[in-house]
């Protein structure tokens, strides 16, 4: 940033100095420096008046002025003109004072009687350069602070928005479950009463039609419940504890079966590795997978359901295998979708939410789900949980 050619580009220096001898020394040096132009005032009050009206690139400051002495002078000047570099100009006994000046904002100090023109020019240029860097730094720091504040505000706003949306969703879920269920209850209830009170007036087709109405109402009730279960999954927090998977899978199987169904099923529960997870949700995983295995094996005279686990490097993989209806691998990408079914309601009942819930729970635990199957041969479902 050395300005040499044009007059208007000259560096305007203001020398605040009351000693004519010292002024002369500086004047002589500036004469040798064509890029600089010097102005002189002899006290702080004139200096402030001058600086108010004139563009100034640097202030040379003596510390023994008639209206201000010592460090206080530096402090006052730096405070008054925070964007103009200040170079302190002191007597040779004032080294400490000079150093202290730099600490409170002066760019450099020159000791009277110990400077030559080159040194003077270098100090002036360095000081101006350093000051402009300092200002740029201060500006970018201020910008950074503003950006930070804006970012924080955005986080606060967004969190509030999300909380409001979550609250709305909860209210929505409640309303859905509450208000949609009432008419369904009336449909099933009054159809049953109709059938009961006017039994003699219905032929078989009439009775079948009433049954269709009732079944549809119940099915829709189930859809509403399943959908609510599924939407609730994303909102609840996980409570992670260690889980005895063997005990859990075994107790779920017992709950889902009766002595009669157990008689028909060969249930093979291996030694399962324990794992950490949310007990309630992992239990739901077993409920959905085991009830699927039972459901899709229901047409077999002798069903087999095999549950096992295999520890891997940083996870445990659990699997449940059945020799039931199976599925076509062609449709594997639809298997875990919400309301996706690979069997008609006529073949096997269901709403198509069970596996979507399984996938959702396992993914929330940081694991994976996958499956293999073959039509009429059976299916194996796998899920992994991190350890």
């Amino acid at each position: 940033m050395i300005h040499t050619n044009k007059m208007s580009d000259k560096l305007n220096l203001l020398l605040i100095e009351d000693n004519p001898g010292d002024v002369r020394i500086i004047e002589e040096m500036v004469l040798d420096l064509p890029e600089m132009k010097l102005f002189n005032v002899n006290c702080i009050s004139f200096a402030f008046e001058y600086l108010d009206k004139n563009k100034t690139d640097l202030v040379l400051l003596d510390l023994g002025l008639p209206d201000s002495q010592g460090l206080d002078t530096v402090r006052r000047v730096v405070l008054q003109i925070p964007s103009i570099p200040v170079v302190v100009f002191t007597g040779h006994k004032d080294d400490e004072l000079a150093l202290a000046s730099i600490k409170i904002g002066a760019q450099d100090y020159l000791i009277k009687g110990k400077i030559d023109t080159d040194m003077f020019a270098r100090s002036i240029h360095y000081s101006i350069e350093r000051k402009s860097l300092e200002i740029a730094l201060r500006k970018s720091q201020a910008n950074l602070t503003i950006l930070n504040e804006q970012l924080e505000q955005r986080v606060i706003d967004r969190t509030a928005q999300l909380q409001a949306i979550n609250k709305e969703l909860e209210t929505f879920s409640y309303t859905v479950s509450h208000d949609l269920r009432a008419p369904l209850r009336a449909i099933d209830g009054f159809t049953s009463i109709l059938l009961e009170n006017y039994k003699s007036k219905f032929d078989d087709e009439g009775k079948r039609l009433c049954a269709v109405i009732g079944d549809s109402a119940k099915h829709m009730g189930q859809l509403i419940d399943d959908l609510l279960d599924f939407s609730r999954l994303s909102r609840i927090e996980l409570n992670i504890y260690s889980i005895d998977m063997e005990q859990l899978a075994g107790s779920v199987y017992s709950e889902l079966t009766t002595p009669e169904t157990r008689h028909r099923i060969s249930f093979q529960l291996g030694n399962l590795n324990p794992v950490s997870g949310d007990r309630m949700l992992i239990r739901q995983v077993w409920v959905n997978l085991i009830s699927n295995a039972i459901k899709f094996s229901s047409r077999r005279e002798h069903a087999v359901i095999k549950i096992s686990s295999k520890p891997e490097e940083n996870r445990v993989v659990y699997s449940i295998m059945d020799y039931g209806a199976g599925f076509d691998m062609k449709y594997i990408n639809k298997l875990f979708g919400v309301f996706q079914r690979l069997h008609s309601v006529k073949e096997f009942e269901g709403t198509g939410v069970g596996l979507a819930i399984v996938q959702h729970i396992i993914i929330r635990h940081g694991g994976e789900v996958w499956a293999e199957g073959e039509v009429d041969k059976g299916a194996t479902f796998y899920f992994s949980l991190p350890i």
Partner: protein
Amino acid sequence: MNQFDPVDILIVEDNPHDAELIVRTLQKQKLANNIFVAEDGAEALDFIFCRGIHSNRDKFKPPKVIFLDLKLPKVNGLEVLKEIKSNAETKKLPVVIITSSKEDPDITKAYELGANSYVVKPVDFVEFVHAFSSTGVYWLLVNEAPR
């Protein structure tokens, strides 16, 4: 039904279809001959405290059990419950909360206010009949009321 007859069951339910299904279920079980249905919370309170249009009722013959829906016009179920349970004369009356949803955010609040039981009205009519007849049997026949 004559307004001076003792009432065994008070049903507070704004949905007339739900009310009809409950009444029918209880009558079929021969559980209660005298059932009164209040359609909103304000009427329920008038009935319980024998005031307003129910000022001629006999105060000393309270219902044996109250089936109370939470979502009600005018005065909601929780407010009705609060009044019943904060009054020395009525706080021993068993109150069974009946609701459409197990998602009801007010379940905990209702228990804190002193609800005696909580029943979700099932969509499936077979389950519905089972829920209300067994609840009716319990509160009218099995349970011993304080004297």
